[in-house]
């Protein structure tokens, strides 16, 4: 095996190419479906949390927070002011919308029961009797399939009251989002789940104290839940061994852009970016120029930095992040300024508007990039971009502003020559400075 990793085996996707793999029957017959749940129900909740902790499973949504630790933050027996017990909620974040990421959609359409089983186990571990699956609203088809999967699980007694005679109850409800990228941020998601605007909340209090509907809540990504049944049935050691220290298990890497075989690849984390591009059939239409390694928000890497390994810590050391596992490959025909501008337009549209730094900053950045492309940029702009970014990152309620500065700042830092050339040349069309700075920034952004 080219991975040079004898411990590796696919955890989530071993059967996704087989016909009928999305059905409950297939899951029960071919994938030891719901056997991990059976095992879990005979364990103590603390043992389940411990198992997940030791497996080094880290959140697959973007932040990479250790899952077991997140679960252990949940209070054991929360009560309100009057001393009545409070419910606890488990929430699945399926608001997949990070550009370059499409793994959750694969899980939903090909192996939904793995995620459901992971959620029930998670519910048992944190002592919750109710879970919500927050799914992005555009996924009409995926929502129908997930609802069918949930209904099937109810029919077989894997969900509902007294699951498999254990006395443990767990209900699962789908909640449909409505097209807001920011709802992938966990506290924005919680607001949206309450029927409010999807605006991130100030932390503390953290969701484990005050989450959905004011109750202690835990939010995890689809892929995170889907990894849990394997950890329980095969044991934490086997899972942890697959990855480097502190990054257990496998990752679903979504390769897109200029590659010959784009798609979702389940891989161990001891591969380099170059290895993964090779697996995906190599670069299409030219030579490798740049890679965004963890979804649009991750700072980009130049071709000469792509020997970097793809575990959380190696990517962080390289100044970028593992993020959501979306690997976007760009060949040398791409103009980096233009590519970054397409991302900035997206961020400009999706900023929730609560914090002025982010609302105005994302808008200004997009317009400055546009101006450079149109031939109106100056050398000073490049320093100005850095200045705007430093006023955004870390200054806001959530990490969205940091996400905007990821591509903006890294593109200028790593491809400064290209920016300078474009400015000298007078934009993409080489027409020279057509509009003045003040002219372009006139008119308030609504």
């Amino acid at each position, binding site marked *: 095996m080219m991975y040079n990793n004898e411990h590796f085996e696919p955890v989530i996707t071993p059967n996704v190419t087989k016909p009928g793999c*999305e059905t409950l029957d297939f899951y029960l017959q071919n994938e030891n479906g719901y056997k991990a749940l059976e095992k879990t129900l005979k364990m103590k909740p603390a043992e389940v949390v411990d198992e997940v902790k030791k497996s080094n499973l880290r959140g697959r949504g973007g932040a990479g927070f250790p899952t077991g630790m997140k679960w252990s933050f949940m209070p054991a027996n929360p009560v309100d002011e009057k001393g009545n017990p409070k*419910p606890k909620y488990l929430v699945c974040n399926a608001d*997949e*919308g*990070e*550009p*370059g*990421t*499409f793994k*959750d*959609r694969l899980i939903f359409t090909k192996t939904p029961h793995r995620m459901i089983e992971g959620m029930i186990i998670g519910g048992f571990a944190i002592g919750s009797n109710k879970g919500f699956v927050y799914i*992005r*609203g*555009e*996924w*009409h*088809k995926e929502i*129908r*399939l997930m609802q*069918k999967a949930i209904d099937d699980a109810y029919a077989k007694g894997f969900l509902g009251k007294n699951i498999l005679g254990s006395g443990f109850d767990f*209900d699962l*409800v789908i*909640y*449909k*989002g*409505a*097209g*807001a*990228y920011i709802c992938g941020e966990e506290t924005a998601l919680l607001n*949206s*789940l*309450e*029927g*409010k*605007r*999807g605006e991130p909340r100030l932390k503390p209090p953290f969701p484990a104290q005050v989450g959905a*509907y004011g*109750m202690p809540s835990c939010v995890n990504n689809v892929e995170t839940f889907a990894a849990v049944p394997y950890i329980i049935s095969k044991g934490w050691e086997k899972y942890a061994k697959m990855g480097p220290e502190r990054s257990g298990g496998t990752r679903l890497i*979504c*390769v*897109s*852009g*200029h590659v010959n075989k*784009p*798609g*979702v690849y389940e891989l161990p984390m001891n591969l380099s970016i170059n290895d993964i591009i090779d697996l995906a059939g190599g670069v299409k239409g030219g030579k490798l120029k740049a890679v*965004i390694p963890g979804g*649009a928000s991750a700072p980009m890497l130049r071709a000469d930095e792509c020997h970097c390994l793809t575990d959380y810590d190696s990517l962080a050391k390289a100044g970028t992040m593992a993020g959501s596992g*979306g690997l*976007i490959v*760009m060949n040398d025909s*791409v103009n980096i300024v233009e*590519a970054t501008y*397409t*991302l900035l337009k*997206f961020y400009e*549209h*999706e900023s*929730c508007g609560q914090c002025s730094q982010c609302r105005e900053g994302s808008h200004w950045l997009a317009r400055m990039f546009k101006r450079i492309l149109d031939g109106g940029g100056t050398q000073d702009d490049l320093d100005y971009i850095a200045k705007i970014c430093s006023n955004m990152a870390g200054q806001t309620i959530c990490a969205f502003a940091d996400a905007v500065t990821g591509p903006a700042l890294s593109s200028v830092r790593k491809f400064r020559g290209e920016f300078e050339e474009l400015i000298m040349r007078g934009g993409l069309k080489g027409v020279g400075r057509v509009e003045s700075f003040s002219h372009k920034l006139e008119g308030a952004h609504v």
Partner: protein
Amino acid sequence: MALPEKIKKTIDSIRHQFPTEQALLLPALHEVQNEFGWVSMESMKDIGEFLNLPVSKVREVASFYTMYRLEPAGKVDIQICTNISCWLNGADKMVECASRKLGISVGETTKDGNFTLSQVECLAACGTAPAMMLNEDYYENLTEESLTQLLDKAKADLLAGKEVGKETRKDGVWP
């Protein structure tokens, strides 16, 4: 005018799943959007009345999310993703092609009220880029040829009085 009985029934049937009344707001807006193709001020008032929420609350939520259209749109909503992976694979050409074919720019609706063309942000179909949505259905790995065919078919179906862009709702197709 009050909310159609059908919508009230749907919302009532899921009421027990949520601890608060306001949680039903997004589902109610989805139902209205689905029924009328957009969310009018009138509908927002009706929803507010039905869920015991001030209209301002309904409006602030409806205006936050892009899937709720606050103005009438065409019967067929063409939404082409132009984000990074789709853009790298020629999404611009797709937008241009659709625009030429329909005779409208992005953000516009054809005069006959049949088609609306818009750009949409990442549909999580980057591996099969370029991608688009035609009402509720995804179409991926687009080429100018396949896009033209899709638009022709949608128009023919529309003229024949068939439902367009709701393939995934049909029994037997999915799941």
